């Protein structure tokens, strides 16, 4: 039992290390939502777009909450994407009508030459009475080849391989004495057979 503990400990340690490693790779999949400036406006980026390639579109949803108006009104929405130096790389404005609809899906193309790094997206909604509400969120630009360097199925495959290897090691440990005993038995049989005639 004592001899079997070591391979099991190694197995458990290896699984833990692999899980931590794969979690770190996919950490952006569990990125925390950024705080909104205003609870009336939420800017949401789906998990699948939290990390994108340069040149790709960043998709996001804008939700207006606590709408007081019953009539149709036009609001101006301004989107800005800023890099980590707070420089604006994209800016876009549009006017939309809101009444019943208070949720928009939008996309903005990130320039091809955008360097890897963290970017912030800001949304500002200006009401006809000049009231403004803000929201922001962030995402990351990086090369896809880095992003998918350790897909989940590789993790599962490696864990499975380690489990299989541990089982094989345990079986060999169990079988080894049996095989050795078989060898001894066979040798004894051979020795006695050869020397049979010499024995009185």
């Amino acid at each position: 039992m004592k001899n079997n503990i070591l391979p099991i400990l190694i197995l458990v340690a290896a699984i833990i290390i692999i899980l931590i490693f794969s979690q770190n790779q996919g950490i952006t999949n569990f990125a925390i939502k950024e705080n909104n400036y205003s609870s009336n406006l939420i800017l949401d980026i789906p998990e699948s777009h939290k990390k994108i390639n340069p040149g790709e579109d960043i998709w996001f949803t804008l939700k207006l909450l606590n709408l007081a108006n019953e009539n149709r009104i036009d609001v101006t929405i301004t989107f800005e994407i800023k890099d980590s130096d707070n420089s604006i790389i994209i800016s876009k404005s549009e006017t939309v009508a809101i009444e019943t609809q208070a949720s928009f899906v939008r996309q903005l193309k990130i320039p091809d030459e955008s360097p890897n790094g963290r970017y912030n997206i800001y949304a500002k909604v200006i009401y006809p009475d000049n009231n403004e509400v803000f929201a922001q969120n962030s995402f990351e630009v990086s090369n896809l080849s880095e992003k998918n360097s350790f897909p989940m199925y590789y993790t599962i495959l490696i864990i499975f391989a380690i489990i299989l290897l541990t089982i094989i090691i345990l079986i060999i440990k169990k079988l080894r004495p049996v095989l050795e005993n078989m060898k001894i038995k066979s040798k004894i049989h051979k020795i006695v057979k050869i020397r049979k005639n010499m024995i009185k």
Partner: protein
Amino acid sequence: MLIITSVENLNKEIINIISREKDIPGIYVSLNKTQKSSNDFLKKNNINSDNLFFIDCVTSIKTNENVLHIPPTDLKKLSFAIKNFIKEIKQNKYLIIDALSTLLIYNNENKVASFVKEITEIASQYNVKVIALSPKTKGEDLLNKIFNFFDKVVKK
């Protein structure tokens, strides 16, 4: 039988035993001499070793195809080998262990005592005479534990 004797008398006792039992095959478990040394020693004393099946627990170097090498640390394997020799040799036979207390260098007392108990049980099951030799000065605690496993204890 357990023979407890002085270190100087050990070889003499072995010669006496083998000479006395010369007409039947013997399983010689050598714990303090290589098979080659044991063989040479027996030849020197005009003892024919043709009737002896050696289990050499001293060296792992295989100089003779007809000798089984078992490490003294592996008592399970050793008892397995002894049992198989007993089963394979169909005639009347005896088992001689030279020298029991040597096992204490490689194993703890309780393990050696268990081993001795197992061997004496196997020997009893197959009606095999067991002669174990041990020097007087070594392993007194062990000897106290294993006295009861033997039909006879002789102090010389």
